[in-house]
């Protein structure tokens, strides 16, 4: 358990350090994800503690966005001034992007291996 937490943090740390050293446009944690992925490829399986820790984190992924979201109170004035433009553009931009991406991807996707993996 402790080992798995350390592994995740070390991957993130390596990502943050490398991003700063070579000035990559990606955030450190995303590079950290690549490192953990490579680690799993080399190991050929997911060690049980890594599985448990990552499941715990991903099960509560939504919660982790709450603190940043509450930051909205600092921009109450600007949001009030342009609320219509912001609301319409955020909803339309997001809905169109999800719809178009999903539609294109579904049409170009090869048949899945496992029919269960395709159930809604």
């Amino acid at each position: 358990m402790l080992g798995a937490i350390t592994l995740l943090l070390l991957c993130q740390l390596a990502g943050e350090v490398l991003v700063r050293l070579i000035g990559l446009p990606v955030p450190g944690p995303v590079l950290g994800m690549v490192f953990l992925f490579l680690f799993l490829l080399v190991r050929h399986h997911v060690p049980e503690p890594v599985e448990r820790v990552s499941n715990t984190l991903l099960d509560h992924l939504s919660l982790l966005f709450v603190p940043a979201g509450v930051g909205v109170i600092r921009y109450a004035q600007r949001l009030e001034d342009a609320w219509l433009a912001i609301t319409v553009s955020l909803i339309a931009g997001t809905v169109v992007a999800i719809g178009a991406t999903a539609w294109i991807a579904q049409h170009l996707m090869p048949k899945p291996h496992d029919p269960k993996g395709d159930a809604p």
Partner: protein
Amino acid sequence: MTDPKIAELWVYLASAPLFWLALTLVVYQALNWTFLRCNRMPLLNPVLWSIVVLAALLSLTGTSYESYFEGAQFIHFLLGPATVALAVPLYRQFDQVRRAVVALGVALPLGSLLAAGVAVVLAGWLGADRSTLVSLSPKSVTTPIAMGISEKLGGVPSLTAVFVILTGVIGAVFASLIFRTLRIRDQRAMGFSLGLAAHGLGTARAFQFGETAGAFAGMAIGLNGLATAVLLPILLPILLAFFD
């Protein structure tokens, strides 16, 4: 305050990280419980309502965001390791991902450009100022990348962070409706579009459709971060030229 002891207690609570940390957890779990109880009714999205409730509590008690964040930062910190942890579902779905390279290669630039383009054009048409438009443009990208892009292009990074969260909430709220309307049944397509257009919040939503969807969403976050970092500096000046 009538009782000086209560006033003293409030002074302690309002300044100690413990109080707002505990409150964030309580509020989120209560709202998540309600959400699950009501068959995940999209409008009851627990992230959206947690933000609303906590923001209201901060305003009512006159607490600054900075003192709130003293406590909430412990939750915020976990976003980093959680992003790293996305490698696990991705590894387990790697075979599927490899077979979908062509579909993803076409859908990625298209979705990336649409996510930014539609938002900027509509907001510009509705009269938003230039700095708001720039801050809006990387809204579909995960917070840390989006803030970096926004700063580089002349936006307000913290405002971008707010737009990013709102986008994620919108993606999570509208996901089922969009998929039902367009008859999207492929978990890979669902996940990829949610991660691309609604980053981590979309990914959290995608995991509710299944692990395959979650893995494709997690991968899409990183890919769209890269795609937007490359494509937006080209697209944005062209779009902004229409509103000058």
